[in-house]
């Protein structure tokens, strides 16, 4: 295991050196990743031998039919789940074998999530939801509130600080989730069908926010069904039946 890991690290370095100084730094590097779900006798190969690398400040859209493995891939990339086999190097760190707590630390520092179903805590206000990631990174209360307010103002919710999620529209809830995803200034944003539950107008607003973030230097990985949305990204990766079938730059 250890040997294998070192090998991979060496390989990774070689890749970087090979690219030379002029190329942008690789942020995400996935090698031979498999994810197999075992339910009773039935095996589902959700990811089959995925190889993928994403550079810093890329805006990548992952598309594919339902059940093709998009969410599974994103969960691996976001360290919410661990692969059955394969290596994952995130920001120069091998993460596929890290402990639960280490992964939590990586999620809190490097990754922001935006889910299709928002995943806000229903009993907390918008402000408290946005504050939450800062609590786990040990930021003190006054600073937390200041930053959470700013983040909510940035997504246009300065007037909704004390609303609970069920007192907000879907688009507003998703913007709270975005504010929460951004509060720790993570370099990478993962968005799993962020516009899936929204009308087209709110969808456009969310996309504009993502584009803005991309301009500010964030790396964005967006999962979508919608080709129009996918084409707003820089690069489109198409998945079918657990494998990458297309990987193209948008002109």
């Amino acid at each position, binding site marked *: 295991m250890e040997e294998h890991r070192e090998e991979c690290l060496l390989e990774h370095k070689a890749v970087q050196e090979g690219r030379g100084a002029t190329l942008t730094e690789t942020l995400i590097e996935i090698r031979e990743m498999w994810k197999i779900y075992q339910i009773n006798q039935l095996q589902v190969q959700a990811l089959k031998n995925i190889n993928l690398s994403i550079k810093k400040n890329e805006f990548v859209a992952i598309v594919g039919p339902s059940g093709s493995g998009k969410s599974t891939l994103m969960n691996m990339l976001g360290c919410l789940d661990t692969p059955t086999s394969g290596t994952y190097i995130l920001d120069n760190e091998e993460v596929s074998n890290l402990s639960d*707590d280490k992964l939590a630390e990586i999620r809190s520092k490097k990754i922001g999530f935006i889910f299709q179903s928002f995943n806000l805590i229903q009993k907390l206000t918008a402000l408290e939801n946005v504050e*939450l990631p800062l*609590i786990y990174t040990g930021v003190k209360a006054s600073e937390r509130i200041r930053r959470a307010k700013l983040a909510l103002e940035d997504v246009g919710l300065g007037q909704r600080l004390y609303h609970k999620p069920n007192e907000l529209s879907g688009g507003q809830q998703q913007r709270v989730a975005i504010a929460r995803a951004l509060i720790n200034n993570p370099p990478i944003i993962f968005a799993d069908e962020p516009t899936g539950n929204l009308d087209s107008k709110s969808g456009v607003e969310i996309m504009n926010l993502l584009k803005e973030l991309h301009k500010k230097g964030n790396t964005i990985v967006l999962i979508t069904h919608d080709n129009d949305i996918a084409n707003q990204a820089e690069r489109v990766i198409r998945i079918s039946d657990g494998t990458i079938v297309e990987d193209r730059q948008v002109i």
Partner: protein
Amino acid sequence: MSFFQAYKMAIKSIKANKGRSFLTMLGVIIGVASVISAVAFAQGSTKSITDSIQKLGTNLIQITITGRNSNRDMSYDDLKKFAEENSDVIAATAPQSSTSAKVKYGSTNMDTTIIATSPEYENIKNVHVTQGRFLLDFDLEYRQNVALVGTAVVNELFENRNPIGEKIKINGQIFKVVGILEERADGATRSDDDQIIIPVTSSRMVMKTSSIRNFAVEATSADKVDAAMESLKAFLLDIYKNENAFRVFDQSQMLETLNDVTSSMMIVLGGIAAISLIVGGIGIMNIMLVSVTERTKEIGIRKAIGAKRKNILTQFIIEATVVTGMGGIIGILLGFSIIKFVIGGLDLVPPVYSIPWALIAFGISLLVGIIFGLFPAYKAASLKPIEALRTE
């Protein structure tokens, strides 16, 4: 994340989920209050049963003088003085001479038992009057010829007349009836109801002897009986110089019964306490399991945005401790109110407030609450974040 931060978060979460927090607390309140009141009821029953056995005279010691002293006999005054010096073990003393005598009222005759004693006899033997009065110090001091009659005597001599104030002749001496004794044996002849009580100082002519050879002594409590007997024996030996000149005996059969009853009531008490603790504990366990399990998704969200397992666990331990702790305190107050107003109000058994049992109930509830609040939280916090997020 600091402990203080975790505490603030737990309080926020309790406040944010008022309904669920209240239900959880209710489970604890009911658990603790039912343990406390069930135990109090059992303890009250035990107390009322042992009290009524004790009323029959478990604390009672009898002294009989059988021999003679070359110089002088022990007088009632000697015994009284000794009792006062040993008030830690001896509560009261009374002379108790008895004889059988012919009693006459008008033209009606009967044979009955005469007991010559002092006012202390009332409390030592728990004989009370239903009409009139008991003996008074005055009667002894001025050698009043007064008598208290048992119901068997009333039935036999007076038929339907009120005996109070009537004159009777006991062995030829005239006595005035001043009280009727409480019935103890349905007024049967040759029972405790077939007796007459007179002052010891007025009894010389009736008893045909001046020396008092029987005494009743009351120990301060059932467990002081042995100590009181030992000191009395030493005192008597000092006077008579001969162990065979006197007898000191207790109601050992009665004491045995008391001990039997007490120990079987303790078993009943323990059983009731154990059952109510288990029932209360299961209630708390269920509500904790349900309320924490339904928060698996919340735990998933917290983990997804960077919470470590120990952050989650700290929050849930604090939540469980605060909720069960508050529930426990309210439960103790409710339990004591039930004792005061329900048990006290029904007046079936005396109310007993047991601090140790309240603390046991509180401690066990807290423990059960924390364990069964923590267990599902631990399970959920050990899931991969995506698995926790997927639950609804």
